[in-house]
Structure formats: structure tokens, C-alpha cells
């Protein structure tokens, strides 16, 4: 660094970050490292006078906690964010300097690492590459690193490129498709060629990119809208209803009174009590999380919150479901270019915590799954729930309304995310897709929430800038009406962006509004009060044409009809799976006690407390049943319950997911996970007749007929279950192509992973029920039928039994059972209720003991075969704790046979089918999960 200055700030005493880094280094096999010290660096572009140094040091250093030096270290490794990646800390330093009277400082930040141990020549570069710097967003160098500052005079040539496609043959079109990463198929390319032949000109690069993004799997759900032909047998083939249509038809048939809007706009809309509506949405952010776990999950949360804001609702809670490879996977066996699951997990969890905690929303419900199938393709689902005062739906953009963008500034972050997420990843993805990763700023989005709370009535339409950025947001809003926008007006994070970059950037925390000119000054006033930037980009025209300019230069002119309806419907082929469903004998189990402990310690069942406590689930004071419950707040809840402090009624949220069923029998899997999600909300006392569902599919490449067949089967299961429970789907999202093409040429697809979110009305949150045992002497009963069903069970996962028999079947009596159980639960007389899922009855009873710090004496089992009774995963079942005097009341109310298992005991011991396990053994197995 020539004429600048740098302040290196170290923590006094032990720095917990060092401990974490060292553990990660060892997990990556770099055991020769014995210590890693971390320090923050603040770079100043120009040298500072002693006075300025003193002033900045006073601002940047807390003497009780930190010590700092202006001398330049000559050893160690240093990192900084790549140019173009936003650096909020640098912005803060400049602002702080301005506050103390030193305006106009050029600042950058970085980190310094001192690495100790018997280091090999390769150690430090390996450590920097694999742990200290994520090269998707950071660069590293041996100290001292020469920082790069934002080039405030950069300017890009405001040119556009005409791409000659009208004369290209198929081969050349495919080549163009590849080199521009359009992820389109040949029929779609033909449609584009035809269109531009008809308008008599070549497309611009911006038009091609916009079409590719609007027609991407991510944005247009080609597969769910596709014409699907099933190849059953030799010549025979039958066409089936497009999947999206099936789900919508199912919802329309159920015709639930509480559904306001489904499968349109950004989220599903419900109404349970007069005067209030509820918006629900769940999304995936899988590909970005695979290459940059923190940024990927961070912006996944930010994105789904904006979906709810885009439905003009006020966000109140977040959910997250995470699927990782085994965190103890041997580092040397990882496929090329794949991050270690341990780093993916810690990055993803930190990303969700950072966004949710800072924006001020409780992260309440979720699940964490581990399977080798997620090694190269981790899955990150994020959901959001919002509320609003009941009002007439927004009219949509009117001709003459202003196109207004609110919130964050536009940078190069997240270019081409939509097309990227629709493609298969390979070893080089991390390098080429760098620009596809967005960086989140939760505070900016928090301010947007505050602004929207005060902007009701000031706009005719709103949508968020998600995948595809302005292109997608403005493009969607302009459908039918048309718009004329000037991208040169968009406020930029830094100069030098080309028109197509501005138009397609996926910079976060931006919303697009359609604002009647008369309301503009009002809107601006609200925005200024909250320090939020509002910018006019143009107007909605009424001519149905989307026109994008950069100053006088027209960069895009597309008929919105063609943009949104011009994509040819795909025809795809499916081969339906034919799972064996013939009953099989129960697998042998020599030592039931050992099996129970193994199940409790299995990463999928064991305590997730180490993750859950990283999230604020208390903020807003509305979380009545938390994800962690019980005498020591360390047992898992089934569903969670939210109720505003001022209300008694509330909402319950439940999650269902089971890829292991999916591998064997996707149709039964779908039915089972819908059942599980509903069981979770019923167990806490929510009303089963008020359940709405979200479906989120993460699948492999649907162009493989067997993979599409699994999807078709799963959708069938979804519709059957939804109809059985009269629980409509109101919104959903599919993330396909979750595959990794290894440098060995082998394809690694994720197991069929359907996440079902159930939302239901809770009539009285003061009477919510939790699964932890409450009172010695109470009676334990199991509700529902128990059959020998081990297909995809965790018992089978542990024993490694290849063919474990059929996946648990639907129970036609379950809907009636849930309604009857609800009438009992809502009285508040049932002391505890726990649904049976992974691990079956034994795990459920053990979890109730773990949560209640009580024992149980189980002397009667619901099935003659002990293995079946203890570990089968038959659906539709609950264990309930009832006061002795309430047993007959419970039986009469349920109206179907119930097995009395035994009693709750004060002795810290689980007596089950002839074996005894001390409570502390159960607890340590449960808590010894992944770390």
C-alpha cells in the first residue's frame, strides 16, 4: 500500500472466533495448525495526520475490549471482499468519520489472520483457500494485502450489442445458449428466433437475457406447467394434467372458506378472523447456498420476507428447513469444488441468524436433515408469515402510474441468478457463478418494512426484486399494461454498470411500486422520514409494450404478451415409479434399548438446540409455543404457536419432510409429509379444519423421465392428502435441477425432497399443548393404528436394511381422528400431546420424558410385534398424556380404540417393553447430536 494508512484491531484476551476457526481447520484435515488469531483491518486510501489517526482510533477501538496498531504487519494472511461486493462496514467507517468531522474518507476493510503450528508450505494457501476466504466473494494474500478501493470515477460504455440469431442453425443456437448461459431449450430458442424474425430485427443482449430470465425454470416453472406424457409400458402412453393445474384444481375443489388467494402473486393469502388477513410463503435458495452458504441463506431469508411484503403484508415470523451432507464427512473424499458440509452448515445457519435476528423477526419453525445425498447440493428452504388489515386487493398498475424503486441501491451483485439456479452445477460453478451470489443487508429491508407499514393506500401494485431483479419485477408488473423505464435513473452502489447489468442485477432489498403521480410526494415524505431511497424509473404506459432505455438509448423493447405468454409449453416424458407396497415382516431387532439410543442420537432426530438458539425466537413477544419446550427448555416442539400479545387466538405452524420415504415411494412420501405437517399443528391444539398448505419441491433434473415420474407421483400424493384433510395448497415453489455433475462425470441428484408447511388457526393460545410430560401418575395413551411399515424409516436407515418393506400408508381414519382429538385438546384437559414421526413410538415417548424431565412406565404396546410397536413409522398417530380421572372422557371423545400404554412416573427412568433406560442416558443420546 503506497500512500494510505491501515489500522489493525485485535481483541484483548481470548477471541472465541479463533476457537471456531481452529476446529474448522482440523475438520478440514489441516491438523498441523495449532492456532489462528483474527484481527480486523480498516484501510484508508490516504494517509492520516496524527490528529486524524487519534480521532479514528477513538471511534473504531473500544479500549476495554480491543487493542489496535497502525504498523503494517509483515506476516500472516489477509482477506478482503472482492471489488463490487458491498462492504457495509466500510460504509459505516466513512459515516462515522463524517460524524466526527472527517468527511470524504475513502475506506476499505479486511481481516488479518496469524496462523500458528508446524506448518507445511501448502498449509497456509490451503487454509486461506478452503477456510479463511470464500473466493466467491473474497480474495486473500500474504500480509500486507494491498486493498482495492471503490473506483468512484469508473464509467462503462453505454452501448448495447445486437445478437444475430435469426440466421443461426440449431447447433449455433445451442452454442449461443451455452456461451451466454441462457439455460433455454431448443424449442424456446426457436420461439425467440421466430419472434425477432416477425419483428424484423435482431434481439439486443438485454432482450436475450431478459427472455432467458423470464422463461427460466426458476421464474416460469416450465416443468410444473409442462404437458407431461407418461410412458407406461411398451407403446402405450397417456397424457396427464400439468402438475400446477392438478394442485390448483385440488385447492379449487376443496373451496375452503378461509382462503383469500392461492397460487397468484407473491404469497398465499388466508383469513381466519374478521378484519385480518395472513400471507404465507416458502422459498428455496439452494444453489447460492451451495457456493456461498452465508450469503445464500442470508438472501434466501431476505427474499422470502420480501415475497410477503410484495403481497402487501407485514412480516411476523420466519421458518427454515435445512438439508446438509453429513458434517463428519471425510474432507479428502469431497467431490471437486464442493464445500465441506460442516462449513456449509455453519455458514447457512449464520446467514439465517444474521438476517432474521437483525431484521427483527422470530425464526420459529423448521427442521434440519442430514444425508449424503445433500453433499454437493445442500437445500435451504426459508418461509415467511405476514399479517395485514383486511382490505380490497390492489388494483394493479394503471396507465400513468409511476414505476418506483424503493430500498437498496443497485450493484453487480447477483447477476443471472435465475438462470444460474435453473442449471446443473459442476466443479467450476463456484468460480463462474460468483456474480450470482447476492449480499444481504437486513437493516435496509427492515426500513422498507417500516416504510410499507405507513404507505398503505399510496400504491396500486407492489412486487419485490427477486431473481432477475428489475427485469423480473418491472416485467411482471408491466404484463398487459406495458411500461417505459430508464435504467440510467437507478441509484447505483458504485459507477460503471452497463445497462444490462442494472436491468438484471439481483442486488437485494429493493421493491418496485406502481405509484399514482398524485401520491408520489406522500410516498417520498414517508421514505425520507425513514431514510429510505425512492426513485422514479419511468411510467406504466398502457400500450402493452415493455420499453427499457438508458438515457436516449433503447436497450429493450418487448411485447409483454410475448415475454410472458410466448414461451412454448414444454412436453416432457415421465416414467412413474412402481414401489412395492406388499406388506413385509418386521425386520429383526436384537437390542431394542440400544436401537432407541441410536435413534435418539441420529443427527436427524437428535437435539437441534445448538442451531435453534442461534435464532431469536422471542422478538415480538408473540411466540407462545417455541421450537424448544419443556422443563429445561430443551425438548423439541411439534408445531409452534404464534399469538399477538393483545390476542388470545393465534396461528400454528407445522413442517413435514421425509426424503427417505421419497427415495422408495414418492407418492406415499407426499401423503405422509402432508400428514406430518398437519399432525404437528393438531398436536399443539390448532383447528384441523383450518389448515392451509405450502408445497416446496427440491428435485433432480426433470428431463430424466424417472425423475419427472417421481415428481408426478409426489404431486398425486399431495393432492390426495390435501383432499382427504380438506387442507388446500395456497402457494408453492419448485427448485429443480438440484444436481451436481462431478468432474468424474457422475451426476449427484438430491433425494426427492418435498417440504410441506402447514398453517392453521389456533382458537386459544392460552390452551396450547406441548409434548413434554407434565405430571407423575398421569396416563399415557397412543392414538391411531400401528402397522409394520419400515420403508424409509430411521430404523431401516440405522440397520442399513436394503428392502425394509413399504413406506407408511395413508390412514383413511386420520382426518376424523384429528377432528375428534382437537375437540379434546381445545378444552385444555389433555396435559401433553406428541405426534409420532421418525423413530416411531419409542422415540416419541423418550422425547416426552426428555422434555418433561420425568419417567414413564410403558407396560402395554399397540402391536404384538415389539419391533413394529416400538419403531414402525405408521402415520396418523399421537401419544397423549391424560389425568387418570380424564381417561374415560378421552376415550368417549375420541370415538375409536385407543391403547393405554402406561403411566408417567417421577422416577427418572423409561421402562419400555421389558428394558429400562435412565433418563440421563436418553438425554445425553438426544443431546449428543451433530456439533
Amino acid at each position, binding site marked *: 500500500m503506497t500512500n494510505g494508512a491501515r489500522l489493525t484491531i485485535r481483541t484483548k484476551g481470548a*477471541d472465541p472466533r479463533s476457537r471456531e476457526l481452529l476446529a474448522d481447520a482440523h475438520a478440514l484435515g489441516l491438523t498441523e495448525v495449532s492456532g489462528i488469531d483474527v484481527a480486523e483491518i480498516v484501510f484508508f486510501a490516504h494517509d492520516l495526520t496524527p490528529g486524524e489517526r487519534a480521532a479514528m482510533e477513538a471511534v473504531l477501538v473500544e479500549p476495554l*475490549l480491543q487493542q489496535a496498531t497502525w504498523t503494517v504487519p509483515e506476516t500472516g494472511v489477509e482477506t478482503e471482499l472482492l471489488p463490487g461486493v458491498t462492504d457495509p462496514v466500510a460504509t459505516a467507517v466513512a459515516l462515522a468519520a463524517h*460524524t466526527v468531522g472527517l468527511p470524504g474518507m475513502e475506506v476499505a476493510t479486511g481481516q488479518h489472520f496469524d496462523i500458528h503450528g508446524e506448518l507445511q508450505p501448502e498449509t497456509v494457501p490451503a487454509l486461506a483457500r478452503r477456510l479463511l476466504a470464500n473466493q466467491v466473494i473474497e480474495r486473500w494474500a500474504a500480509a500486507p494485502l494491498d486493498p482495492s478501493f471503490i473506483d468512484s470515477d469508473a464509467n462503462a460504455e453505454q452501448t448495447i450489442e445486437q445478437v444475430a440469431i435469426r440466421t443461426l442453425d440449431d447447433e449455433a443456437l445451442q452454442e449461443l445458449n451455452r456461451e451466454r448461459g441462457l439455460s433455454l431449450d431448443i424449442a424456446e430458442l426457436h420461439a425467440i428466433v421466430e419472434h425477432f424474425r416477425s419483428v424484423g430485427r435482431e434481439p439486443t443482449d438485454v432482450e436475450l437475457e431478459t427472455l432467458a430470465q423470464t422463461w427460466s425454470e426458476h421464474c416460469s416453472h416450465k416443468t410444473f406447467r409442462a404437458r407431461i406424457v407418461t410412458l407406461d409400458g411398451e407403446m402405450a402412453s397417456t397424457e396427464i394434467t400439468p402438475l400446477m393445474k392438478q394442485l390448483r384444481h385440488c385447492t379449487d375443489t376443496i373451496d375452503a372458506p378461509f382462503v383469500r388467494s392461492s397460487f397468484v402473486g407473491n404469497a398465499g393469502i388466508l383469513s381466519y378472523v374478521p378484519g385480518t388477513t395472513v400471507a404465507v410463503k416458502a422459498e428455496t435458495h439452494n444453489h447460492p447456498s451451495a457456493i456461498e452458504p452465508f450469503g445464500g441463506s442470508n438472501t434466501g431469508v431476505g427474499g422470502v420476507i420480501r415475497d410477503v411484503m410484495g403481497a402487501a403484508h407485514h412480516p411476523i415470523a420466519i421458518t427454515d428447513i435445512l438439508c446438509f451432507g453429513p458434517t463428519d464427512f471425510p474432507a479428502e473424499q469431497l467431490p471437486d469444488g464442493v464445500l465441506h458440509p460442516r462449513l456449509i452448515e455453519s455458514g447457512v445457519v449464520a446467514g439465517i441468524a444474521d438476517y432474521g435476528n*437483525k431484521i*427483527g423477526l422470530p425464526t420459529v419453525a423448521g427442521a434440519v436433515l442430514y444425508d449424503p445425498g445433500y453433499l454437493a447440493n445442500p437445500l435451504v428452504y426459508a418461509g415467511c408469515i405476514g399479517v395485514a388489515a383486511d382490505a380490497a386487493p390492489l388494483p394493479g398498475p394503471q396507465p400513468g402510474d409511476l414505476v418506483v424503486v424503493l430500498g437498496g441501491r443497485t450493484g453487480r451483485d447477483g447477476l443471472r441468478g435465475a438462470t444460474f439456479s435453473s442449471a446443473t452445477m459442476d466443479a467450476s460453478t463456484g468460480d463462474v457463478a460468483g456474480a450470482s451470489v447476492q449480499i444481504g443487508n437486513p437493516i435496509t429491508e427492515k426500513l422498507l418494512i417500516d416504510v410499507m407499514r405507513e404507505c398503505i393506500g399510496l400504491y396500486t401494485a407492489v412486487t419485490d426484486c427477486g431473481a432477475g431483479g428489475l427485469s423480473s419485477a418491472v416485467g411482471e408488473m408491466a404484463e398487459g399494461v406495458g411500461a417505459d423505464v430508464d435504467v440510467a435513473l437507478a441509484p447505483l452502489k458504485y459507477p460503471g454498470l452497463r445497462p444490462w447489468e442494472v436491468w438484471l442485477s439481483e442486488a437485494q432489498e429493493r421493491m418496485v411500486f406502481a405509484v399514482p403521480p398524485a401520491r408520489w410526494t406522500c410516498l417520498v415524505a414517508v421514505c425520507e*422520514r425513514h431514510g429510505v431511497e425512492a426513485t422514479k424509473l419511468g411510467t406504466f404506459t398502457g400500450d402493452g409494450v415493455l420499453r427499457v432505455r438508458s438515457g436516449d438509448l433503447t436497450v429493450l423493447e418487448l411485447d409483454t404478451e410475448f415475454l410472458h405468454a410466448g414461451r412454448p409449453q414444454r412436453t416432457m416424458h415421465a416414467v412413474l415409479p412402481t414401489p412395492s407396497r406388499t406388506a413385509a415382516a418386521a425386520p429383526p431387532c436384537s437390542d431394542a434399548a440400544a436401537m432407541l439410543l441410536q435413534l435418539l442420537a441420529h443427527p436427524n432426530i437428535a437435539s437441534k438446540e445448538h442451531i435453534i*438458539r442461534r435464532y*431469536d425466537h422471542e422478538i415480538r413477544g408473540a411466540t*407462545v409455543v417455541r421450537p424448544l419446550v419443556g422443563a429445561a427448555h430443551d425438548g423439541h416442539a411439534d408445531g409452534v404457536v404464534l399469538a399477538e*400479545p393483545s390476542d388470545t387466538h393465534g396461528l400454528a405452524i407445522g413442517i413435514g419432510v421425509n426424503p427417505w420415504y421419497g427415495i422408495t415411494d414418492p407418492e406415499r412420501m407426499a401423503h405422509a409429509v402432508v400428514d406430518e405437517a398437519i399432525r404437528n399443528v393438531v398436536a399443539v391444539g390448532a383447528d384441523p379444519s383450518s389448515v392451509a398448505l405450502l408445497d416446496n419441491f427440491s428435485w433432480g433434473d426433470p428431463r430424466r423421465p424417472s425423475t419427472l415420474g417421481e415428481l408426478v407421483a409426489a404431486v398425486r400424493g399431495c393432492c390426495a392428502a390435501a383432499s382427504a384433510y380438506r387442507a388446500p395448497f395456497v402457494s408453492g415453489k419448485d427448485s429443480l435441477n438440484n444436481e451436481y455433475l462431478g468432474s468424474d462425470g457422475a451426476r449427484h441428484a438430491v433425494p426427492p425432497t418435498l417440504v410441506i408447511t402447514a398453517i392453521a388457526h389456533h382458537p386459544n393460545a392460552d390452551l396450547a399443548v406441548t409434548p413434554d410430560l407434565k405430571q407423575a401418575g398421569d396416563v399415557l395413551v397412543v392414538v391411531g393404528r400401528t402397522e409394520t411399515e419400515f420403508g424409509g424409516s430411521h430404523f431401516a436407515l440405522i440397520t442399513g436394511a436394503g428392502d425394509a418393506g413399504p413406506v407408511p400408508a395413508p390412514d383413511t381414519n386420520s382426518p376424523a381422528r384429528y377432528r375428534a382429538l382437537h375437540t379434546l385438546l381445545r378444552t385444555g384437559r389433555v396435559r401433553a400431546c406428541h405426534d409420532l414421526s421418525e423413530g416411531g413410538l419409542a422415540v416419541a415417548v423418550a422425547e416426552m420424558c426428555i422434555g418433561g424431565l420425568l419417567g414413564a412406565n410403558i407396560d402395554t404396546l399397540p402391536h404384538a410385534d415389539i419391533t413394529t410397536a416400538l419403531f414402525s413409522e405408521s402415520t396418523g398417530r399421537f401419544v397423549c398424556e391424560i389425568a387418570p380421572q380424564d381417561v374415560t372422557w378421552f376415550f368417549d371423545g375420541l370415538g375409536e380404540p385407543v391403547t393405554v400404554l402406561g403411566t408417567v412416573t417421577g422416577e427418572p427412568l423409561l421402562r419400555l417393553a421389558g428394558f429400562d433406560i435412565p433418563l440421563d442416558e436418553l438425554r445425553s443420546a438426544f443431546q449428543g447430536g451433530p456439533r
Partner: protein
Amino acid sequence: MSRPRAVVLSAPGTNRDHDVAFALDLAGADPTVTLLAALLADPTQLQAAQMLVIAGGFSYADALGAGRMWSLALAHGVGDALQQFVAAGKPVIGICNGFQVLTRTGLLPGALGHNASGHFQCEWVRLAVPASRSVWTHGLSDGAVEPIECPIAHGEGRYVHPDVAALAANDQVALRYAISDNSRNPNGSVDDIAGVCDESGVVLGLMPHPENHVLARQHPRRTRGTQAGLGLALFEQGVRYAKGR
């Protein structure tokens, strides 16, 4: 004076302002959430208030250390008005990020570092209330009432002070994390300190969130019939004091 006027100060990134306003309303105050920018534009708003709350959250995303940017803005923007407010003996409370802000501005002693765990934690704690100068905890000290239980939700809550013995001897330790089988010091704070007050006793800073336990239903063991001390008591005492002045 019926309901004392309370200014709930909210900076960009503050997110528990509405929670604490709800608590103050329950406690008998008349709270108004005031944006920092609005106060900077018109510092006289403070004079009209009888209570001041620096609410919790992630002001400025914790850039340069939790509370740093906010404390700079306050010190350079309304430093004098703030000093006068305290000098006038009007009660001030800083919760979580607010506590961090008050230590950075020097209104409260000590500092708050990263939790010993190295990351954000959300869990419930039980608070012991030693006898102290604090006007907020007066009459709430141990034994007098049910011990307050409420959640923490922070990553930088480890209290440090160069001379805690002197601090305690000077009756400025207002709250401690109670230590028992089911209650612990969650973040490694020296001397289990959860909250401290200034020498005058009118300024209180604490890391836990009493505003999130103002209804019995909000307690995690409510479904087990647990009735623990409400955080509301703290706000009621603050209101009582503001009224009595």
C-alpha cells in the same frame, strides 16, 4: 401526572421498540416510538418526556461494534439534551443494544464484548436483583418479589469492567444472572452482571429483555403451569418513579 410520557428511541435497525412500547403502555406510561433522525432534527422533544428508552435491536447492523454508530450520533447530535435529561433525574433505560449504546456514550460504566460462546444466543434467564442505586429496580430486590425471568437475544452481551469490586461497592450493579441448577450466566459477563446503573441511579442498562415477559402466557413453561416474575415489574417501577418525581 397520570401517564408519564416515555420516548422510545429507535435508530435504523432497532427492532424491539414496539415490544418495549407495549410493555410501557401496560406499565402505565404513555410511550411514543421516536425515530433517531426525528430527535436529531428536534432535540427539544426530550424535554417534553419524563422517561427515555433506548430500545434493543441491531442499530446500523452492529457495524464497528454493537451500539457504536448510534452512540456517535447521539453524542454528536443530542449529547447536551441527553446530559440535561439525566441531570434532571428523569429515568433512562437502555435494553440490549440500548445498554451497549449507553456504555459507548459513557453514560454507563464498562463495556459489552462478544459472548464467550462467540455467537448470538437466544435463551431465558433468571435475574437476581441486588440492592443498588437504581431507581428502576427499587423495591424489586431479592426476596421482595418473584425473581424476574425473561429472554436474552444477543451476540455482544459479555459485560466487562476494569474494577467490578468498586462498581459493586458503589451499588451500581443493578441486575445479575441468577446462578442455580436451571439458571446460568449465559455470556461470560464478569461477576454475572446483567445490568448496571450510573452513579445517580436514574440510568439503567441491561442485556436481557424484560419487555418480552409482560404476560404470563409469554413464559416458555407456561404450559407447565409455571408462574415466574414478569419483566413488567421493572417498567412499573420505572413508571412509579417517574410519577413520584
